[in-house]
């Protein structure tokens, strides 16, 4: 398992960020801190997919007019890029709706801590 840390550090970083995001979402009692954790979780998954799309000695997936058409091994894989574009934008939409809910909760209960909100709701 040592070669993972040496030659594929992207997966180790993905695991660290994923677990960090989940830990913050589970443990933290402040609502905005939970959303920070959710954002870190989403971007770590994007990191994972982009790592799968990397090819050695390849260039960006834009076919330049100067050269002749290179074989597909010379371009980075465009399909995970497309999926991750969708993921980023959907992630920020989710963030916007979550922040609207946080503001509505603050307007009602005047605090951002989860346990105090639950107390006041009883």
């Amino acid at each position, binding site marked *: 398992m040592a070669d993972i840390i040496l030659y594929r550090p992207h997966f180790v970083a993905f695991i660290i960020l994923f677990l960090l995001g989940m830990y913050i979402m589970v443990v933290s009692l402040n609502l905005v801190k939970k959303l*920070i954790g959710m954002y870190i979780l989403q971007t770590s998954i994007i990191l994972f997919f982009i790592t799968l799309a990397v090819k050695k000695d390849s260039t*960006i997936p834009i076919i330049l007019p100067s050269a002749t058409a290179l074989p597909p091994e010379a371009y980075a894989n465009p399909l995970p890029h497309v999926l991750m574009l969708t993921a980023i934008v959907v992630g920020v939409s989710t963030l916007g709706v979550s922040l609207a809910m946080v503001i509505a909760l603050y307007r009602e209960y005047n605090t951002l801590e989860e346990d105090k909100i639950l107390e006041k709701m009883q």
Partner: protein
Amino acid sequence: MTLFDDYLLLLLAVVTALGAVFVRDLFSGVLTLAAYSFFLALLWAGLGAVDVAFTEAVVGAGLSTLFFLVALFLTSHQEEVRKQLQVRMMAIGSLGILGFLLLYGSVDLPVVGDPKSLPSKHVSSHYLRHSLEETDTRNVVTAVLADYRGFDTLGETTVIFTAGLACWMLLRKRDDSAT
């Protein structure tokens, strides 16, 4: 982009993510999150994902930081310190098991940079070969996003519109209580 550059940017991303979550003041946390987004955008641009890097820099580091800051302006921005040892121990334990399982499973993942790995076969090579002649577009990511996978993009645009609608409905002033 050598492995050393990857190491450096990954280390910076992890350090800024740790900094974003382990501060008390939420303003500092959100701005460190913007720095984290920028480091990730640099990493993706280095790995060859230029469209994703552009979108992350604009949408992730720009728009999400803006929304966070507006939300923090209107609410409080100090987090209270709480001791909840039992929850933390259980979280660390279960997430440790999950982390070990993920590490164990990542041994079988393809080597980073292998041009013959499984995600690069089949459909993806077809897109790279034929997108210029079929759609007259040099940016293969745009061609795939808008033409080959246009249905997903339609769904995504609907999701964005629905999110805007939901935000508006959640936060409008109730003029009359009947609606």
